[in-house]
C-alpha cells in the first residue's frame, strides 16, 4: 500500500467509512511504514483539532436584522408582518455603563500606581543617553565598541548605540516606565538614540533600529512629548498610544497594530495604520492588510 493511500484510508476511518479488510491493511501499513508514521500521527491530531472547533453562537440581534431585511424587500408579500422580538429589560444590561466606568477608573488608578512605583524605584536616569532598563528573560547587550555582556532577569544600564539581542524565546525590556519592548527569540534591536530631559526626568525621545526579527512595542502610557521611534530598513514607525509588532527581515518589514495607531514614515510618503490593520512593506510596494478579526462569542456547551 502506498503512503498516500494510507493517509486517505486513515481519513476515511475517522468517518467510519472503511471496511474491516481496509482497516486491517491500514493497521499493517502503520506498523511497518516508518516513512509516513509522522504524517499519520499528524492526521490524527488534525482530526482531534477539527473535533474541537467550537460552534458559533448567533450574533446578538441577527435574527431581528434578517426579519427587518426581508420585510423591507417584501413588504407587500408578507400578509402578517413578523414581529421582531425586543430584548427584555435587564438590570445587568442597564448597569453595564456603570460597570464600564468603574473598570476604566480602576484601570486608571492601577496604571497610575504602577507607573508611580516604577518611577520612584526602578528607573534611574543617571546621565544623558543612558537609562536603567528592567529585563525579563535573557539578553545579550553589545556596546558600540564591541563589549558584550549577558543580562539575565534584572536591571541593566542601556546606552545609546548598544545592540540588544534576545537569546531565549523572548525577552521583555522595560526601557521606561511607560514603554515595554518584547524581543522575540533572535530579534536584534539597536538603541540608536536615547535622550532625556534631566530637569523634568522624562525621556525626550527613544529611537530604536530593528535590525532583524520581531519586536513588539507596548506603550503602557503614551506621551506625546516622549515618542518612541522604531525604524527598519524600509520605514520608521511612531506609535500613538499603541501596541504593535514589527518584523524586519531581508528586504521586507511587516507591521501589525493591535491598539491605537502607528504613523509610518517612508522616503517620500507618510501614512497611518490603525488598530486591527497592518502593513507589508518592501522597497517596491506597500500593502495594507486587515488583521484577522476576533472570534465572535462561541457557544461552549
Amino acid at each position: 500500500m502506498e503512503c498516500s493511500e494510507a493517509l486517505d484510508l486513515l481519513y476515511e476511518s475517522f468517518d467510519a467509512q472503511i471496511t474491516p479488510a481496509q482497516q486491517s491493511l491500514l493497521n499493517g501499513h502503520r506498523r511497518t511504514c516508518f516513512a509516513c508514521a509522522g504524517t499519520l500521527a499528524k492526521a490524527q491530531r488534525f482530526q482531534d483539532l477539527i473535533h474541537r472547533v467550537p460552534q458559533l453562537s448567533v450574533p446578538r440581534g441577527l435574527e431581528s436584522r434578517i426579519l427587518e431585511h426581508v420585510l423591507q424587500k417584501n413588504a407587500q408579500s408578507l400578509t402578517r408582518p413578523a414581529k421582531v422580538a425586543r430584548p427584555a429589560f435587564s438590570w445587568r444590561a442597564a448597569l453595564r455603563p456603570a460597570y464600564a466606568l468603574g473598570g476604566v477608573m480602576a484601570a486608571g488608578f492601577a496604571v497610575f500606581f504602577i507607573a508611580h512605583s516604577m518611577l520612584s524605584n526602578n528607573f534611574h536616569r543617571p546621565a544623558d543617553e543612558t537609562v536603567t532598563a528592567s529585563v525579563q528573560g535573557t539578553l545579550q547587550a553589545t556596546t558600540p565598541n564591541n563589549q558584550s555582556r549577558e543580562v539575565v532577569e534584572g536591571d541593566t544600564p542601556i546606552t545609546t548605540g548598544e545592540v540588544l539581542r534576545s537569546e531565549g524565546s523572548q525577552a521583555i525590556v522595560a526601557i521606561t516606565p511607560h514603554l515595554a519592548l518584547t524581543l522575540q527569540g533572535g530579534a536584534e534591536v539597536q538603541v540608536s538614540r536615547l535622550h532625556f530631559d534631566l530637569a523634568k526626568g522624562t525621556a525626550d525621545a527613544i529611537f530604536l533600529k530593528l535590525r532583524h526579527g520581531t519586536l513588539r512595542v507596548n506603550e503602557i502610557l503614551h506621551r506625546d512629548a516622549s515618542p518612541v521611534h522604531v525604524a527598519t530598513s524600509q520605514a520608521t514607525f511612531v506609535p500613538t498610544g499603541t501596541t504593535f509588532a514589527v518584523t524586519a527581515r531581508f528586504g521586507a518589514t511587516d507591521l501589525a497594530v493591535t491598539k491605537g495607531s502607528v504613523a509610518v514614515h517612508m522616503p517620500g510618503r507618510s501614512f497611518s495604520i490603525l488598530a486591527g490593520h497592518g502593513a507589508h512593506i518592501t522597497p517596491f510596494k506597500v500593502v495594507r492588510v486587515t488583521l484577522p478579526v476576533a472570534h465572535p462569542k462561541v457557544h461552549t456547551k
Partner: protein
Amino acid sequence: MFPLFLGVTIAGAVRSYHLEPVSNNLDVELMTKVANGDGEAFAELVKRYTRMLYNVAYRYNASSAEDLVQETFLRAFQHAKTFSGRSKVSSWLYRICVNVCLTHQSRAGSPTTDIDDVNEAELLVREDERPEVMAQRGETFRALEDGLRALPSQQRMVFILRELQGLSYGEIADVLGMNEQAARTNLCRAKRRLQTWLDPLLV
C-alpha cells in the same frame, strides 16, 4: 427549542450534529405557511435555522457571514413556493446558502491591493500569512479557518458541511449537486491541503 440546538459529540464515532433542527411535518407545514406570506411562520423558520446557516456562512467567509445569512433567508422567502417537500428543509436551506456563498465568492475582488489604491474602509486581508505566525499568537483555530478559506470553493464547502456541520455524504451530494464519491474525494483533498497548511501546529 433549546435542546434542538445543542451539539452532541460521540467519541470514536461520526459526529451527529449540532445545529440542525429535526426536520419533520412541522417544518413542511411551516414552509407552506411561509409560501403563503405568513410572517409569523417565517420568523419561526429564521429562529430555527439562523444558527445553522450562520456557522456555514462564517466558516466560508467570516467577514460577510451576516450578509450571506440575510441573503439566504431572503431567497428562501422569495422562493418558498418552490419547496416541494421531497428534501429536508435544512437541506433546502443549505443549498440556498451554498449558492449564495459561491455567488458572493465569484463577485469578490483581489485579496491584496496596493496601499495607494484603497481607502481605509476597503482594506483587504493578505493571504500569505502563514500558520507559524498565527501559532505564535495562539490562534490555532484561526489558522484553521484561514487555511479553510484558502481552499478551492468546492473542497471548502464539502469540508464545512461534513466536518463542521456533520451532514452525511448523501446530504452533501444533494446540497452540492454532486455524487457521493465526488464528495468523499473532495473531502480527502481538503483534508490533505489543510493538514499541510497546519503542519507546524500539529506537533
